[in-house]
């Protein structure tokens, strides 16, 4: 089974802090994704990577950046956290076809 692991289940950060969310997958998948999930809005794509060091903006990239230095690891960075970035963040990977999701990181920015 594919395993997608997100480093933290819950995070509480202060406004203005730099925040790193880490995601690791163990199936050599080329594609990795970061989504945020908010009630009633479904999952919205923040960034997507189809190879090491390659990235594409999704629907809501503002306020976020990403890093993919190794195939198995995809990091989401909030350069200066704001309260409107309080959300559930989901990482996913795929080889084409089904997306495999991690359990999510619930981030609260106070």
């Amino acid at each position, binding site marked *: 089974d594919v395993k997608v692991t997100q480093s933290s289940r819950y995070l509480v950060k202060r406004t203005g802090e730099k925040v790193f969310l880490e995601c690791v997958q163990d199936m050599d998948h080329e594609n990795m994704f970061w989504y945020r999930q908010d009630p*009633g809005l*479904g999952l919205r*794509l923040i960034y*997507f990577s189809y190879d090491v060091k390659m990235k594409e903006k999704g629907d809501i990239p503002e306020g976020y950046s990403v890093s993919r230095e190794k195939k198995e690891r995809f990091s989401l960075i909030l350069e200066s956290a704001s309260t409107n970035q309080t959300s559930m963040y989901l990482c996913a990977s795929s080889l*084409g076809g089904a*997306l495999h999701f991690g359990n999510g990181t619930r981030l609260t920015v106070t």
Partner: protein
Amino acid sequence: QQPVQSPQAVILREGEDAVINCSSSKALYSVHWYRQKHGEAPVFLMILLKGGEQKGHEKISASFNEKKQQSSLYLTASQLSYSGTYFCGTELNNAGNMLTFGGGTRLMVKP
């Protein structure tokens, strides 16, 4: 553009059937369906690629209309384990799985 899912929520008794719809204003390359239980990761159910396609997974099946703008998920003889939020994810073209998800349909199955 985000697909529109309906209904937003549905409550069923065990054994009842339900249909969840997912509509797009543009023709799609593919539709994915996922289920997310409370506090857990979304889990892949199925993918539809061809217009007119129907696909089944135990008592859960889905269709993709000929114009490839609408998909429906059918839950037959629902079980308690079907409870959760169902999401459709759509691709406009074959561009590496960049899915746009609908807002979700919350399904609750009662005994």
